[in-house]
């Protein structure tokens, strides 16, 4: 990947270079401190008490036996909490601190034991006796929509909501044009399902809470430290200045660590015991805590004879868990762009967020787009097959060109997406002859970047020219810290190893709304850029005074202060100007994107994250196993501030996409208990599951709103994995599959049906 620079400066630019990751050395030596590595004096260990049951009515909680375990200090139950039980959540304040009267999903905590040692906490938790009775649980879209279904949430939690007596949390209607007026040559109808999958970050969830007279302190690898701060301040009626969040870098998050889950519970324990309380979940408990929203999507798509998309009529039902978390937003944001990166004359999208007695679904890389894209992109391939076109040409026909609308009246296509598509097609060898038994597939997708947002940064240029960048982003592997340093390096002329990026402390670092939606390069990147430009303004004033020139004649570029008479390194100007008393130059920067109340999403997309993914694959028709020969992903990234990190993130997202495409699904029994908890039976890709040839590429046209023309990255490469691979499988075998994952057994089942009803008993493959 080559980066080009509009004007060649005299020094090597850091931005655009694949510089080594900041924090990398700590990670390879084991010095990096994750939350489970944090030790505090007098810290108590916390273990949750949960039921081995789906939904249940809690009859009685007897903690007396737990207190007999030496070292057990306190057992928190709903009885310890204010009445009514406090509830919290980023969008709906629906989640109770502890299960109140009823557990609504397998693994919802009923109590929490704090003890001096981990063993004592475990032993104590095992001795808490909960009398309960299992209740019928709503586990699927159809079950939830049944008028006789039990309500997942009490209507009193949703006052004034006309849907309060249903399990539909929210219904969104988007669309344009009139689909009934369309005169298609072909209408294709399909029903697609996307299963429950879980994040499986290698770092299980955890947090620490401590309380003293000053207030509350949290250690949490939360992606949104300032949101945690605000929510805890509200919950405990404290000023923000007395709630401090320290956010260790997450060991992988992928959206699952965006919003508070157990911090409130820990705060109550810390207040009660007077000691810091640390909870680290097991992997099994982590699976019970977070997942992606599942979906069932019914689409009717009209095509012209030549293959133009004439309309999409979409009924999109997303299955949330027992508490909304941020999942309603997932439904809204992804379905708003359900029609994808195309010119679609008419659309009707009815999207519903439906509650169920399952793990609360939350944000997960892609934020709803992999699910809807699975359906809508697959429709394009079905249309292509019926019209005798191929998957590439049908997409190119309708692909929106830069400046053309994808949703009429909204931000138009912001990239030359065709370049990415052609690049992907060329890399997979689209027009070359296919070896026998192989098939090809290609798919596209867009995801909206942040629609509103605020990031603030302070940059401190120190006396010797070294730099501190204060930025509240969470670096969870995407390398935010590194690119922020690269920006400062170039703007302030400091070598990378003299820049420190300070993150993860709400007491020191200014406000950042959140780390999500691939927003940080753009939002925080711009805030840092503006902070540096603030420093430039001060430097210009300093130089004007120092050298007796007009400030209009001074510029700062490429790390140098440029005067009519010549150039000076920034550090030299700083030292000369500040003099004997020393000091520093402080710059502040902001990027703010304000609300648009009339917009269905509250704001329009700051940018689109566009991806094209292509596969060449082979299927063992006796076993149903898929062998991927080529996996290509191309992203329209604007500008790769760090090409190495962009490629790593895209490769990683591609492999994660293979996970939900080939092997991941959360399996429940009829009562809502998760059957495949833990690493033995929930499969994610290993080194041996990587395609024979996986390539992540990017198109850079410097046409994004971020620093140097950057757009957001990190989510694109899993938006299109499933439909592209399914298309390759269909191309290779003639078999069309509309449910994920494409396990060997599922592919095999479909192959049996294709061979003829006499081949196997049971004509239709089982639906999940």
């Amino acid at each position, binding site marked *: 990947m080559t980066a080009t620079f509009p004007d060649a400066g005299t020094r090597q630019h850091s931005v655009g270079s694949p510089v080594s990751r900041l924090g990398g050395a700590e990670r390879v030596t084991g010095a990096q401190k994750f939350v489970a590595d944090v030790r505090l004096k007098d810290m108590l260990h916390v273990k949750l008490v949960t039921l081995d049951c789906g939904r249940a009515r809690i009859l009685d909680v007897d903690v007396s036996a737990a207190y007999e375990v030496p070292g057990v200090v306190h057992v928190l139950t709903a009885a310890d909490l204010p009445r009514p039980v406090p509830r919290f959540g980023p969008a709906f304040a629906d989640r109770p601190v502890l299960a109140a009267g009823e557990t609504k999903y397998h693994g919802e905590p009923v109590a929490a034991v704090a003890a001096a040692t981990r063993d004592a906490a475990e032993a104590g938790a095992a001795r808490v006796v909960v009398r309960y009775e299992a209740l019928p649980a709503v586990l699927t879209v159809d079950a939830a929509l049944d008028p006789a279904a039990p309500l997942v949430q009490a209507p009193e939690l949703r006052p004034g909501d006309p849907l309060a007596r249903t399990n539909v949390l929210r219904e969104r209607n988007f669309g344009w044009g009139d689909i009934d007026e369309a005169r298609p040559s072909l209408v294709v109808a399909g029903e697609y399902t996307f299963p429950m999958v879980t994040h499986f970050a290698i770092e299980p969830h955890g947090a620490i809470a401590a309380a003293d007279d000053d207030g509350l302190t949290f250690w949490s690898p939360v992606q949104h430290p300032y949101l945690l701060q605000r929510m805890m301040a509200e919950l405990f009626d404290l000023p923000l200045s007395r709630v401090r969040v320290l956010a260790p870098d997450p060991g992988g998050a992928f959206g699952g660590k965006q919003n508070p889950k157990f911090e409130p519970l820990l705060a109550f324990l810390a207040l009660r015991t007077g000691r810091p309380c640390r909870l680290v979940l097991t992997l099994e408990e982590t699976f019970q805590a977070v997942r992606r929203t599942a979906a069932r999507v019914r689409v009717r798509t009209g095509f012209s004879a030549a293959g133009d998309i004439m309309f999409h009529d979409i009924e999109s039902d997303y299955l949330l868990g027992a508490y909304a978390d941020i999942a309603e937003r997932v439904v809204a944001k992804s379905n708003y762009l359900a029609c994808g990166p195309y010119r679609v004359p008419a659309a009707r999208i009815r999207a519903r967020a439906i509650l169920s007695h399952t793990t609360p679904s939350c944000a997960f890389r892609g934020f709803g787009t992999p699910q809807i894209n699975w359906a809508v992109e697959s429709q394009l391939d079905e249309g292509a097959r019926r019209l005798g076109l191929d998957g590439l040409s049908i997409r190119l026909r309708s692909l929106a060109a830069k400046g053309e609308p994808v949703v009429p009246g909204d931000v138009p296509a912001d990239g030359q997406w065709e370049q990415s598509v052609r690049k992907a097609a060329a890399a997979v060898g689209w027009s070359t002859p296919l070896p026998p038994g192989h098939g090809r597939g290609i798919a596209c997708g867009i995801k909206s970047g942040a629609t509103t947002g605020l990031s603030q940064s302070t940059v401190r240029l120190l006396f010797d020219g070294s730099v501190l960048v204060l930025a509240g982003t969470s670096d969870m592997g995407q390398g935010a810290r590194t690119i922020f340093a690269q920006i400062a390096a170039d703007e302030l002329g400091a070598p990378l190893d003299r820049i420190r990026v300070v993150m993860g402390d709400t007491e020191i670092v200014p406000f950042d709304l959140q780390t999500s939606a691939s927003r940080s390069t753009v939002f925080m990147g711009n805030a840092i850029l503006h902070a540096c430009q603030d420093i430039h303004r001060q430097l210009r004033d300093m130089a004007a005074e120092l050298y007796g020139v007009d400030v209009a004649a001074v510029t700062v570029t490429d790390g140098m202060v440029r005067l009519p008479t010549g150039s000076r390194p920034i550090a030299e100007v700083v030292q000369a100007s500040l003099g004997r008393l020393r000091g520093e130059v402080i710059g502040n920067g902001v990027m703010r994107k304000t609300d648009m109340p009339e917009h269905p999403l509250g704001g329009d997309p700051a940018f689109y994250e566009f991806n094209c993914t292509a596969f060449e694959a082979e299927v063992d028709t006796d076993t149903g196993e898929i062998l991927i020969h080529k996996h290509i992903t191309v992203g329209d990234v604007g500008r790769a501030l760090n090409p190495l990190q962009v490629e790593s993130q895209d490769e990683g997202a591609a492999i994660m996409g293979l996970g939900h495409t080939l092997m991941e699904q959360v399996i429940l029994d009829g009562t809502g208990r998760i059957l495949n908890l833990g690493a033995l039976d929930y*499969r994610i890709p*290993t080194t041996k599951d990587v395609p024979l040839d996986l390539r992540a590429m990017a198109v850079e046209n410097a046409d994004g709103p971020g620093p140097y023309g950057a757009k957001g990255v990190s989510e694109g490469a899993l938006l299109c994995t499933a439909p592209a691979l399914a298309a390759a499988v269909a191309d290779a075998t003639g078999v069309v599959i509309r449910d994920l994952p494409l396990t060997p057994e599922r592919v095999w089942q479909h192959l049996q049906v294709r061979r003829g009803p006499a081949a*196997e008993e049971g004509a239709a493959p089982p639906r999940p």
Partner: protein
Amino acid sequence: MQAFDYARPATTAEAVALLTRHGDQARILAGGTDFVVRLRHGIETPGVVVDIKGLTDLPADVTEGGGSVRIGATAVMADLCRHPVLRARFPALVEAMSVVGSIQIRNRATLAGNVCHASPAADTAPALLVHDARLVIAGTGGERRMPLSEFVLGPGRTALGTAEIVTAAELPVPARPLGTAFARMTRRRGVDLATISVCCSVDADGVTRLGCGAAAPVPFLVTDISGILADVNAPGPARDVALDRLIAQARPISDVRASREYRLAMLRVLSRRALLAAAQRLAASQNGKARTGGADRGDRA
């Protein structure tokens, strides 16, 4: 996990004495790759864990004598996979062991442990059955031997008494040239538990044996003496009929890993492939030269 006492006896007699004394409260620890998981999940709550890795009187990893190869109970699979005697005499067993977990697991897991854990999907069971493996068991009454086929009684259940230890597995050295092959089906290409596994052996007389795993509550062995399955030139349909008859006793379950229907179908597919590979290997060893290898696509019926 719950606390327990730990003993590391130096002799088999001591170990048996410990097991006798503590009875139901004692559990044996060898590699720990299954056992420690059970401890962690609270499925096992022993009072005493008896670590047999300190026993000085167990057979060495691999010894040959008296027409048998003996594999010591504490030999780890990583070492067994590299052992020249096993690679030469029982290549299918080596194939099976080399897919048990990851290298980290194989550096600890023992063959005896895999047998005693008695999972219906134990990767080593099909090969052990095909080779008529016996367990050598030490107890208060001395030493006894038991065929594997009688040792495993059900999922997680064996005929091992409370005060007994498996000290070795014994595999008779094949009397006549054999071609063998191991195959298994998993949910992903990476490390996984078997959805179905088979081990096939074919000898010069055309006797065909098929060890099947994850296809019934206990791994089972079926034998065909007609010779038709070993004959690559026999007509496909006739061989299929013979194969179906052979694997008719499979009773796989549907669980989170696979459905019954898929397991039965894959048993058939894998058996065919393993048969072909075994027959080819037998021919190669008899001719002393390698044939073109790999299951030919055209041979899949």
